């Protein structure tokens, strides 16, 4: 009996060791794949920055079939659409999070939370189709602009796509604010609104910043819906009305042109070059999103 027990135990240890090392290999391989993808991106895209003169790829015309590789309109286009999307999504998202967490009765919260998460599951091509056929005509007629396929239309769709991320992360941040803060506020004679606006939201500030940054990351990388509704005209968005004119984003450019480009050509490298620029931008955003988390941990404050 005892002997049998011992053998099963050693067997368990042995299989545990095997499983442990397996998990370790899998874990490291994930990191390895990310590094490999990055190296591949660099290998394919870096030649672009050396082959094409600076004046060309910092130029204002993107016309790759004729050797014009001005990436500025694409970078500015992406930034314009993404920032506008966040400007639209932040107040909506924050208000929704505050409502769900602080105002709504329990049963409403139970219904709303999963509904918001379902929003995240709508395929972007469906939203793009919706944007192209419903939002774009609406934008054109209500704002009286030449075409409804504008940066603004793209921003509306992107805001909608970033909303679930912003709401759920911000809601978690509000949830993490200790009940004692609210009690203290109310005990001091503050109204419910004052407690929410002056105590709870500021206390959850860093979490809300993370929510915005994650929403930003989601928005800047989105391709399909943006490609369908922004018109994809590679013009410089410098004039005041640019928000209501077509733009071409970096992601849409890569998606639209990668299919037919000759492998190894300058155009091919240019698309990977745009990929590098996009990667660096999202990396910076994620870095900015991670900072408040690290700061908080150092201070040992709220979680």
């Amino acid at each position, binding site marked *: 009996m005892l002997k049998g027990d011992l053998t099963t135990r050693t067997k368990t240890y042995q299989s545990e060791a095997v499983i442990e090392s397996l998990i370790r290999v899998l874990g490291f391989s994930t990191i390895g794949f990310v590094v490999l993808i990055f190296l591949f991106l660099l290998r394919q895209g870096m030649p672009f920055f050396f082959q094409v003169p600076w004046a060309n790829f910092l130029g204002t015309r993107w016309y790759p079939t004729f050797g014009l590789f001005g990436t500025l309109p694409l970078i500015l286009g992406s930034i314009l659409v993404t920032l506008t999307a966040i400007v639209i999504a932040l107040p909506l998202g924050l208000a929704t999070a505050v409502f769900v967490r602080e105002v709504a009765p329990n049963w409403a919260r139970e219904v709303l939370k999963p509904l918001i998460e379902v929003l995240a599951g709508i395929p972007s091509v469906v939203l793009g189709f919706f944007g192209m056929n419903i939002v774009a005509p609406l934008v054109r007629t209500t704002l009286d602009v030449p075409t409804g396929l504008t940066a603004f239309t793209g921003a509306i769709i992107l805001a909608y796509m970033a909303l679930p991320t912003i709401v759920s992360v911000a809601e978690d941040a509000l949830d993490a604010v200790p009940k004692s803060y609210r009690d203290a506020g109310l005990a001091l004679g503050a109204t419910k609104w004052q407690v929410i606006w002056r105590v709870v939201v500021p206390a959850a500030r860093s979490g809300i910043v993370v929510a915005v940054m994650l929403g930003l990351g989601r928005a800047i990388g989105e391709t399909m819906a943006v490609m369908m509704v922004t018109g994809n005209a*590679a013009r410089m968005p410098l004039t005041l009305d640019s928000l209501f004119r077509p733009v071409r984003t970096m992601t849409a450019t890569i998606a639209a042109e990668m299919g037919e480009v000759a492998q190894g050509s300058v155009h091919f490298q240019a698309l990977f070059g745009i990929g590098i620029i996009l990667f660096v931008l999202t990396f910076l955003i994620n870095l900015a999103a991670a900072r408040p988390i690290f700061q908080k941990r150092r201070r040992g404050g709220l979680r």
Partner: protein
Amino acid sequence: MGAAMAHRYRSPAGCAGKCLWRLTRCPEPLLLLLLSTSVLIACAPASSAHELPRTALVTTIENMGSDTMVNLALAWAEDYMHLHPEVRISVTGGGSGTGIAALINGTVDIANASREIKPEEVERARANGVTPVEFTVARDAIAIVVHPSNPVDSLTLEQISRIYTGRITNWREVGGEDRPIVLLSRESNSGTYVYFLENVVRMGNPNDESLFSPDTLLMPSSEGISAEVRQNPNAIGYDGLGYVTPDQKVLAVTAREDDAPVIPSVETVNQGIYPISRPLYMYTVGEPQSVIKDYIEWVRTGGQKRVAELGFVPLRERVTLSNDISSPAVAVLP
């Protein structure tokens, strides 16, 4: 064997390992399971052997060339292989030039080209002891489309060129309402785009360096163009004739100032009077023989019904287009 293993681990009895050796003590569901597994294993090779026809002689046709034609060529190849299982046709894109070069080098049997073979290519082929033979297999016409409410009925090629290069920006300048013009184009990877750029924007002048205006909206699909044209009275777009839906207005095009405007239709394209159209070709090495001959003959007859489906113009009139575009003036919004 793999199937048997899977069944073993999924068995509900939980004693699968031992039961394999002591079948008699096994609960009945497991026995059934094992039986069905063995039946499956026995059946699998038999059925697949039955389905594959044992033809010793399979002829392969190598078909390469124009990216514009690649979907059409694929559709033809699929249909023909369905009719003639003894023939294999492999279709590759790469461009008209690539296809013709491969034909000259003898690596393909048929080259697809959306332009005529150039004299220097014929020259090189001759030097290689090859005589290319040309077959017109379909026609490609590009229709200029606008919103049904747009009062403009026709444009000259030059006007279209000036519109697409951004020199004309208001419909008033071409006889329409006082509205800004919104330019729609296909993405730069589409064959239609290149053809339109060379023959309309640059008006066929090889020394012309004009490009599309930077304000041109590049749509990822035909559906993108038709959706915008359908709902925006400012828009002008172009697309393959077969892709035009009845809720868009097709403009008549005039090649030169004093010519009569021509509306694109199967007849005008086949008569060669509609200016924005081109024949699509297949080239073979010498007069085609046996299977290749039969394939090209089929493409020019039975295969023509696929042509209209894919947005091109069939060689004969009696094969009608999927949408009636011969009377676009009566097009109405849904």
